[in-house]
């Protein structure tokens, strides 16, 4: 019987056919916890009478939101989590490797066909590896730590077919912002997005991660890119795995099907204070900015930094009066950028380059905005107060648009630089 990719993953993991709408106690292949939501999950695990976690090898622990500890309570959380890791024999990446979603991907902890949960809403990023991955709360995670399974309602799916070829300095972030604008902040609630079409097949893994990452911004439970040669090459370079076929059937019962073409897509900007409030860059060009953040699980990879550096070109410096904060998403990506000379260029131009972490996107660690300030960010959320004061404004855009805007101190179309 024809099935969506989400239905196939749950059917395969449960050993029998399940359909959208079914509620199953599905096995969890991997579970990610970090410094903010992890401590609560551990407490809940213990309140549930948990003594030993179901499988330490399937639990991924790391710290990325408040690192190095920015307060004594944050430091205490880190100590608490380290002790739990040691007691339970969980491998803890600690604060050494970077932002959780980048680390899970680059360490090969996500693979096609797996069911993965994380106590972070952007866990859907691993859909770029062909996994069914979704964000859960700490109490659900306590349950997962104890039992290795969780109730899932198998979601309906929206089939997205994206064709065409991106124009110069337009890419994955512009696509996903335009999709958020089209589908809306709750247009995919409880559903899975399937990203297909030529533009997705031609997109590199970094771009696919950007797209899958922001599925949650449409309310989606997961955002999955069917695995192809690029996926298998990425995953097989990181763990021992044999490729298999996994794709939604054309005649599966999709809740909806939407077609897009990126050929004429302009750089997109999400304007305050909602992610689905999306316009062409030209509509907001000239808006003065105080801070620019290039980084996060959405856009902190080497490819993103290279995109920003290409726009920076040979310019001597970023505009006076704009603070540019660059944060590679992981130690690995940092090293790649460092060895390619990108970090040197950013520092020369006046950027603050920070060690891999969530940075200003978290809105609680550093890089906070004062009332009235304006930020342009390559991250994923522009909610009121997300990066500091509720009287500040956050715009979301691609690394190319961020770099162009950093050169002029105002929102700038990267194609015109």
């Amino acid at each position, binding site marked *: 019987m024809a099935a969506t990719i989400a239905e196939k993953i749950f059917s395969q993991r449960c050993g029998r056919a399940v359909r959208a709408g079914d509620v199953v106690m599905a096995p969890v292949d991997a579970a990610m916890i970090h410094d903010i939501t992890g401590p609560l999950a551990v407490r809940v695990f213990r309140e549930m009478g948990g003594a030993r976690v179901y499988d330490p090898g399937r639990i991924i622990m790391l710290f990325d939101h408040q690192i190095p500890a920015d307060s004594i309570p944050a430091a205490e959380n880190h100590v608490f989590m380290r002790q739990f890791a040691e007691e339970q024999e969980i491998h803890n990446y600690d604060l050494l490797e970077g932002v959780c979603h980048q680390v899970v991907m680059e360490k090969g902890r996500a693979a096609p066909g797996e069911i993965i949960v994380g106590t972070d809403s952007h866990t859907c990023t691993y859909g770029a590896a062909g996994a069914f991955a979704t964000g*859960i709360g700490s109490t659900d995670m306590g349950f997962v730590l104890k*039992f290795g399974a969780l109730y899932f309602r198998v979601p309906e799916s929206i089939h997205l077919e994206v064709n065409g070829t991106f124009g110069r300095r337009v890419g994955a972030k512009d696509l996903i912002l335009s999709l958020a604008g089209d589908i809306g902040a709750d247009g995919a609630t409880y559903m899975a997005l399937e990203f297909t079409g030529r533009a997705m097949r031609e997109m590199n893994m970094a771009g696919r991660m950007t797209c899958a990452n922001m599925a949650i911004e449409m309310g989606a439970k997961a955002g999955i890119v069917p695995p192809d040669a690029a996926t298998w090459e990425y995953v097989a370079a990181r763990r021992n795995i044999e490729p298999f076929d996994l794709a939604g059937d054309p005649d599966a019962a999709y809740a909806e099907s939407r077609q897009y073409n990126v050929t004429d897509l302009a750089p997109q900007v999400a304007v305050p204070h909602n992610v689905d409030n999306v316009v062409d860059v030209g509509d907001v060009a000239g808006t003065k900015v105080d801070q620019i953040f290039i980084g996060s699980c959405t856009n902190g990879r080497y490819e993103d930094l290279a995109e920003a550096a290409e726009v920076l070109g040979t310019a001597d410096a970023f505009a006076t009066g704009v603070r540019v904060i660059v944060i590679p998403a992981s130690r690995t990506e940092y090293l790649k950028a460092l060895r390619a000379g990108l970090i040197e260029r950013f520092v020369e131009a006046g950027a603050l380059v920070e060690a891999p972490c969530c940075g200003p996107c978290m809105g609680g660690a550093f890089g906070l905005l004062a009332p009235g300030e304006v930020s342009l960010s390559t991250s994923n959320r522009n909610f009121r107060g*997300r990066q500091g004061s509720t009287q500040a404004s956050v715009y979301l855009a691609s690394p190319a648009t961020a770099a162009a805007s950093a050169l002029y101190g105002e929102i700038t179309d990267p194609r015109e630089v």
Partner: protein
Amino acid sequence: MRVWKFGDDIDTDAIIPGRFLTIYDPAELAKHAFEGTRDEFAKGAREGDIVVGGSNFGCGSSREHAPLALLGTGIRVVVAKSFARIFYRNAVNTGLLPLVCPGADEIRDGDAVSVDIGGGFIEVNGKRLPVEPVPGFLKKIVEAGGLVAYAKDLDRVETCSTE
């Protein structure tokens, strides 16, 4: 019992800003609920008051601090036209009852309200507005008072069982 009315797309950053996420105690979190968004809420909310939102209530982060902050103020019920998925499930798990009410737009800030869960409605200004029941598999968790109470006495679960 009064209504605290909010609009559409109320996100979890608004319910509890990121800088308070090292706090886990509901009573402490409650002091910062809606800080910067609606400052009078944390001081004014009373045991049994109800938060009413529009569509997509609780969108954004998976932070369970959001339902905990509301619980800490004495809120036990959140009513909305629709909920974001993770918040909805977190609410059920922590013992905060999320009720989908298609007519939530009719409810105004400060209205007196009563909830009749068995009857499947809330009563506002003498008018009954139907609310949708929590789906079957979550009902057990609601009845237990949250997922901790539900899971405490379980030694194992049957993987791949269907509800």
